[in-house]
C-alpha cells in the first residue's frame, strides 16, 4: 500500500514540476525571440472564432433558462419585473465566465491535448526540435496567448447573448415589458461585477490552455495514450475552471468589495 502511494505522490510532484517548468519556458518565450506571429494569429482564430458557436448557444440557453427559473421564484414575491437584475448579476459575475470556461475546456482543452499528444507519439515534436524549433515557442506560447485574449472576449459575448436570451423569455413568456427588463438588468450590475466578469476569464483561459498543452506534451503510449491525454486534459481543465473561479472570486471580493 505504501509503495503505490509513494509512487503516486512522486508522479504527482513530477507533473507539478514539469508544469511549472513549462510555464517558466512560456514566460521566456513571450519576451524573447523568436516569435511565431503567424501561429499566434492561427490560434486566435482556432480558439476564438472556432469556439464562438458553442459559446453563443451556451450563453443564449443559459440566459433563457435562468429567466424562466427566476420568473417562477420571483412570482412568489410578486417581483417578476426584477428578473433582469438576477439574470444580469448571475451571468456577468459567475455563469458567463464559468460556462464559457467549461465549454472552452471541452472544445479547446481536448483539442490541444489531442493535437500535441498525437505530435508527441508520432515524433513530430522531436522532429520540430531536430529542425531547430523550440516546441514551447512554436506550439505552446501561441495557444496560451490566444487563450488569454480570446476567453475573455468569448465570455463577454456569452454574457451579452445570455442577457438577450433572458430578455427573449422575459418578454415572450413572462410578459414583462422590454424596457422594464433592460432597466432591471442595468440596475442589477455594479462596476465591480463587470470587472469580476472581465478579470476571471483571463485566469480561466490561461488555466485551460496551459493544462491542455502540458498534458499534450507529456503524452506517451501511442494512440491509447492520446485518448488518455485528451480525457485527462478535459477533466483537469474543467476542475481547474471551477477551482480557479472560486479562488479568483475570493481574491477579487477581498480587493474590490
Amino acid at each position: 500500500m505504501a509503495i503505490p502511494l509513494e509512487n503516486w505522490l512522486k508522479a504527482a510532484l513530477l507533473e507539478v514540476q514539469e508544469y511549472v517548468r513549462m510555464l517558466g519556458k512560456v514566460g521566456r518565450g513571450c519576451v524573447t525571440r523568436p516569435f511565431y506571429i503567424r501561429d499566434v494569429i492561427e490560434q486566435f482564430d482556432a480558439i476564438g472564432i472556432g469556439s464562438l458557436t458553442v459559446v453563443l448557444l451556451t450563453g443564449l440557453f443559459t440566459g433563457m433558462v435562468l429567466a424562466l427559473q427566476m420568473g417562477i421564484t420571483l412570482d412568489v414575491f410578486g417581483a417578476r419585473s426584477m428578473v433582469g437584475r438576477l439574470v444580469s448579476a448571475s451571468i456577468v459575475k459567475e455563469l458567463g465566465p464559468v460556462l464559457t470556461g467549461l465549454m472552452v475546456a471541452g472544445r479547446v482543452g481536448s483539442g490541444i491535448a489531442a493535437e500535441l499528444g498525437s505530435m508527441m507519439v508520432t515524433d513530430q515534436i522531436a522532429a520540430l526540435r531536430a529542425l531547430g524549433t523550440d516546441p514551447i515557442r512554436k506550439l505552446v506560447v501561441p495557444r496560451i496567448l490566444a487563450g488569454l485574449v480570446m476567453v475573455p472576449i468569448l465570455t463577454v459575448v456569452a454574457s451579452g447573448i445570455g442577457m438577450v436570451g433572458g430578455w427573449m423569455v422575459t418578454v415572450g413568456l413572462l410578459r414583462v415589458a422590454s424596457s422594464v427588463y433592460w432597466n432591471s438588468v442595468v440596475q442589477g450590475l455594479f462596476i465591480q461585477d463587470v470587472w469580476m466578469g472581465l478579470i476571471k476569464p483571463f485566469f480561466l483561459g490561461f488555466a485551460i490552455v496551459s493544462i491542455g498543452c502540458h498534458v499534450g506534451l507529456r503524452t506517451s503510449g501511442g494512440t491509447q495514450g492520446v485518448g488518455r491525454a485528451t480525457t485527462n486534459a478535459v477533466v483537469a481543465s474543467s476542475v481547474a475552471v471551477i477551482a480557479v473561479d472560486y479562488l479568483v472570486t475570493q481574491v477579487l471580493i477581498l480587493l474590490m468589495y
Partner: protein
Amino acid sequence: MAILESRTRPPLLDEALAHGGPIIVFDDVHLAFDDKVILRNVSFTLQTGHTKIFLGASGAGKSTILRLILGLLKPDAGQIFVNGEQIDAMSEDELMAVRGDLGMVFQEGALFDSLTVRENVGYKLYEEMNWPMDKADARVKEVLGFIGLAEFIERKPSELSGGQRRRVAIARAMAAKPRILLYDEPTTGLDPITAITVDEEIMKLRDLEEVSSILVTHQLRDAFFVAEHMAVRRGSDIAFEKVSGDKADEAEFIMLRDGKVAFEGNAGELRAATKTDPYLEAFLS
C-alpha cells in the same frame, strides 16, 4: 551544382573536420532510464564523409544514439562531440545552433500532418533560417527533384505512400544543407524496390555531397547495400557501383548488444566475424 554547401566554421576547425576528420565522437557514453541501462560505455568516431551503420536487436539502444547526437536526450556519463563542439552539457538554446548542421530522418518520417510536402520540406528554411520565399521555394523544388518527388509538392503527407513519406522526410532533412544526416530505420516496412530507392538517396548524399551519415537499421540487405556500393556521377546520370579499396572502409558497421558495442568494422570484417561469434552469426543469418 552541388546540392549541399558548407556552413561557416572557424578555419582551423574546418581543417580538422575535413574529409576523414572526427565529425561525431562518442566517448564512454552511458545512459539509463530508471533501472534499465540503455547504453554502457559506448565509444565510436564518425569521420567526415563516412557512414556508420548501427545494427542490433530492438531495444539495444540504436535509436537512442541518434537522439543523443541531436541533443534530444542527455547522457548520464561520457562525452559527445558533434561538429567539433561538446554537446552533452549544452542548454537547449545552444543545441539549436548545433542542430543547424544536422538532419534527421525519423522512423516513420514524422512529417507534419497539417503541412503540405512543400511546407514540410521547406520548414527549416521558411521558419528558422528566414530565407527569402523565392529562394526557399527554389531549394524545396531542387531537393524534391533530387529525390524524384517534385510532382507531389502540394500534397499532404496523408496523400503519400509510406515510401514517398520516407523520401519526403529525407528531403526535409537535407533541405537546409546539413553536414551530417541521421537515418532511423529509413527502409523498415517498405517494399524492396522502394527500399532500394531510399538506399540510393542515402548513397547519393554521402558520395556526391560529402554528407557524413549514421544509419540505424534492422534491414541487413539495405545495410550491406549501402555499405558495399557507392554513387558515381556519369555525365548527367548517377550510377551505383560496388566499392573497392579504401572506399570500402568508409562505411563501418557497429553491432550493439545489451547497450554495448559488440562489434565494429567494415562489411568484410563483419562477415568474417560471423564465423567466430555465434551471436553475430545468428543475427546475420
